[in-house]
């Protein structure tokens, strides 16, 4: 999996990013966000590369990567299913939807299916509470989702 993302092409894109943030105060967050966009994740190899080039201690970078929930060290599946577990969605039964997907796919929250196709995540509020409960698959948003419909929706992405 890692060989697939640690390509020369990706590293040269990272070089460009590092160049852009040279001399900018507090560059670490945008650097890591950019790196994650390039590689799909921020594995240790990428962290130590940034550490060396941007002259930031690796321990500090690792600390930041593991602190924020949106940074990840392993890439996600082809399709990311996120079930909103914000309050409005929760009171309208999003936990049951989550359980149903988890059971049907055999993966827990934050896990990726063994074929690398799906990653299931529980997201915090995406601010579309009027449409609760919400499920998003990649960039597609499904509002007012019924427990009985969810597996049919996911069928499209198989």
């Amino acid at each position, binding site marked *: 999996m890692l060989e697939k993302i640690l390509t020369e092409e990706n590293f040269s894109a990272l070089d460009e990013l590092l160049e852009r943030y040279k001399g900018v105060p*507090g560059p*670490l*967050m945008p650097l890591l966000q950019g790196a994650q966009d390039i590689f799909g994740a921020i594995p240790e190899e990428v962290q130590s590369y940034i550490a060396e080039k941007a002259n930031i201690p690796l321990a500090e970078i690792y*600390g*930041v990567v593991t*602190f924020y929930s949106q940074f990840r060290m392993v890439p996600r599946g082809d399709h990311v299913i996120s079930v909103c577990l914000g309050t409005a969605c*929760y009171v309208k039964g999003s936990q049951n939807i989550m359980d149903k997907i988890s059971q049907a796919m055999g993966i827990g929250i934050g896990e990726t299916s063994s074929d690398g196709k799906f990653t299931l995540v529980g997201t915090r509020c995406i*601010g579309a509470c009027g449409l609760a409960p919400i499920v998003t698959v990649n960039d597609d948003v499904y509002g007012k989702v019924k427990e009985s419909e969810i597996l049919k929706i996911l069928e499209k992405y198989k």
Partner: protein
Amino acid sequence: MDQKHSVLEMDYIRKQERIALKNCGLIDPERIEEYIRYDGYQALAKAILQLGPEGVIEEVEASGLRGRGGAGFPTGRKWRSGYLAKGNEKFIICNADEGDPGAFMDRSILEGDPHSVIEAMTIAAFAIGATKGFIYVRAEYPIAVKRLQIAIDQAHEMGFLGSDIFGSGFGFDIELRLGAGAFVCGEAKALIASIEGKRGMPTPKPPRTNDKGLWSKPTILNNVETFANIPPIIRNGAGWYAAIGSEKSKGTKVFALGGKINRTGLVEIPIGTPLREVIFDIGGGIPGGKKFKAVQTGGPSGGCIPTEHLDVKIDYESLQDIGSMMGSGGMIVMDEDNCMVDIARFFLEFSVEESCGKCTPCREGTKKMLGILEKITSGEGVMSDLDDLERLGQIIKDTSLCGLGKTAPNPVLSTLKYFRDEYEAHVKDKTCPAGVCKALLQYTITDKCIGCGICKTVCPVSCITGNKKEKHVIDPSACIRCGACQEACPVDAIIKR
């Protein structure tokens, strides 16, 4: 014509007063010309050419505007302290890390009227003498990020940002910074740490951010909605704004109505409007003829407000008095089908996950509380657990370092106060009155059963028995309470309680 008249007469429209949301949905947010057409950047011109820094601060002070992020600190006083702070470099930060689940007014403003925030930040910068601003926005809001960047670029082209704004010699620039999914970064000092490229952890106060903020320079932070109120205040004058709202809290507040309510969405109302009016007149009450149980305000920092307090007039103090808080304005309505113990557990789970781990009361205390709540919802609670929850909650409130920990016990303490009977039902009778807590549920087949056998075939653990055309029975000791039988039953003969 008649129809238009009747729409405007609807309570949903009539009882609202739109100031912060004035332009949302009316203008094209990606065209600065449309913002200007609706008086945009006039407030900035008035501030720079007419009022001067002190004049601006006096105006904001006199308006009575208070921080809309939740704590309600007077905005004018904050700006004055920024103005008085000594330093050759100062910063303005817009806190757009709208993390409370169930609140989306900031997203709406950022997406629908981004220039109002940029104009307000520039006014604030002019008032306190800052030259650089940051908008710290959640990465979960990609459209807001895109539109803000467009708006910043357009403001530059028009000369509302950059050096020498309106030929005054005053220069200001704004940079976007994205969050990375940490609720605690809504806290001022944690947010600053995050911009600096560190773990988003708060530090003790003092020093306050207006003396030592970003890179230890004087920094003024305001929330998106607070900023959105600034241009109208400067344009129309403090007196106009101060005439709206309640005695202690002026102006309007945007609430995100959600949950079990007929009309969901953002509503902007004068502060001091009774809760009942918001939920029943504006929101249209509870769907499906269900009974109102509670309204949750303030997200994970707030509490659940029961029927008996529905006539409370919403403001910062009144909500705090009844164990909740205004917060950023999430307002989630719950009906008889929601279990209050489960809701308390839900919020605490959130706080446990989002605690940054720096101070012990928040890191360990909330975890202990969650453990007790899980024990109760799984039917293993004892009565002394309730006292433990109260005691622990109070200690966490008193001793945590930042706002996250100080308010994390609120959902538990408020539900314990108003819905103690529900907790006791879980502990003493081992039942969940709302039918939510799975471990305490029992599925039974009523006499409506026609003996079709469908439930028997869908049951994953084969715990249903019965002959064709006769009433079937569920064996509660083997039942895993998945609810598959209830969903499959063609005559709704299966009930859970």
